[in-house]
């Protein structure tokens, strides 16, 4: 995890100096994660592409603002992708839930001639989603996905789902901790 983080942070630092090769390297490392998040939030591939492109452009413009002492580069970038996608979705005011549900099964979208690392990542994603479904009760998984993919606050989730705020917080926290424990046991590194 630490070595991975060093690489991502180093690439961002190189981007701050105008190194375009660092941008493509970071893209190659994070594009599937970014696109997955954007797709989940935006609900369609065109909007997801726009969100990912905008996120990479913002990183390119603001790479010098990244402060490694305040957090790791990968979650920083993934939150940026999520926020951009949420903003764009809100700007559009429409969300095509049907399309979203259709494209969630990403394993079907992996071309046969994709490189091994992409295929490997897709496989890992499939196992992770399976784990999420096994580990987390439906309501817990739903709370987490709403919080992280729709950008709602705990209070907004509580209001929308009609449950106490404390219950929402507990579900999300417990669900993330279970996920963390699973990742540690399963040998997954983010």
């Amino acid at each position, binding site marked *: 995890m630490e070595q991975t983080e060093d690489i991502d942070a180093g690439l961002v630092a190189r981007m701050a100096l105008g190194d375009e090769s660092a941008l493509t390297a970071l893209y190659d490392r994070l594009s*599937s994660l970014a696109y997955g998040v954007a797709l989940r939030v935006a609900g369609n591939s065109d909007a997801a*592409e726009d969100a990912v492109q905008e996120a990479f452009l913002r990183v390119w413009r603001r790479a010098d603002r990244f402060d490694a002492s305040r*957090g790791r580069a990968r979650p920083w970038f993934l939150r940026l992708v999520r926020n951009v996608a949420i903003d764009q979705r809100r700007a559009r005011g429409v969300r095509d839930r049907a399309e979203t549900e259709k494209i969630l099964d990403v394993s079907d*979208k992996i071309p046969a001639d994709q490189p091994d690392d992409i295929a490997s990542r897709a496989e*890992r994603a499939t196992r992770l989603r399976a784990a999420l479904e096994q580990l987390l009760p439906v309501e817990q998984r739903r709370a987490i996905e709403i919080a992280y993919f729709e950008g709602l606050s705990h209070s907004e989730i509580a209001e929308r789902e009609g449950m106490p705020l404390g219950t929402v917080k507990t579900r*999300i926290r417990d669900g*993330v*901790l279970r996920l963390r424990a699973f990742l540690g046991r399963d040998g997954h590194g983010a």
Partner: protein
Amino acid sequence: MAPELETNIDERELDDLAIEALAEAYAAPAPPRLRERIVAAVDRERERGRSARTVQRTRVVGALAASLALVFAGLFARELQRGRESGIELAALARQNELLAQQNGVLATRLDEQGREIVEQRRVLTGLHEALESQSQVLRLVGGPRVRTATLAPQKGVTGTGRVLVDAASGDAAIVLSGLPPLEEGKTYELWVIRGKKAPEPAGLVAVSDAHGGAVRMPSVPRPNEVTAFAVSIEPRGGSTSPTGPIVLVGPVAG
């Protein structure tokens, strides 16, 4: 079996973990064109940046050039103005010089006049000084212990009187004339010393103005004890060695 949960983990770490885990779980290969789109967008971004910097540099250079042009224009205008001012100043100086030259001319004229006045005043002063000296001598002569006098009486048809004073020891002499008329051009009064039966001896010329009063110092009279009388005649200018004109005053020495 559900894994044992950790509770001593901060919210930030949980948040990072969640977003990464969810991203991993829902990872999806991006369309190949997206990479090219992003690279192209970044290239456009860089080009815009270069253009903006170029424009900025151009603006800066332009602003500098404009500033320099303004500065040089200002300097040129100032020099031009200085030139004009210098021209104006030169013209003013020329006029001033002209005025000064005129004033100098006036002053030179005044100086000449004053010089002449000074010369005249010196001459007058010299005359006054001589007159004063003469009067002083006459006064000393009058107050002297051995003075001899001769009262000169007018001859027939003549108006005026006179008196001659002579120091018996030194021969210093002075004459006081009163009432004699001024003489025509080329004539002068001349004093004569008479010693008994001998021929009159010239004792000096007396100016016409002197004849209107006041003591006039006369040349020293040799052997004053032998003088018996004095006389005044009208002679040609420059005097004579013996009387040639009419005797107007004559009188014996007393004492």
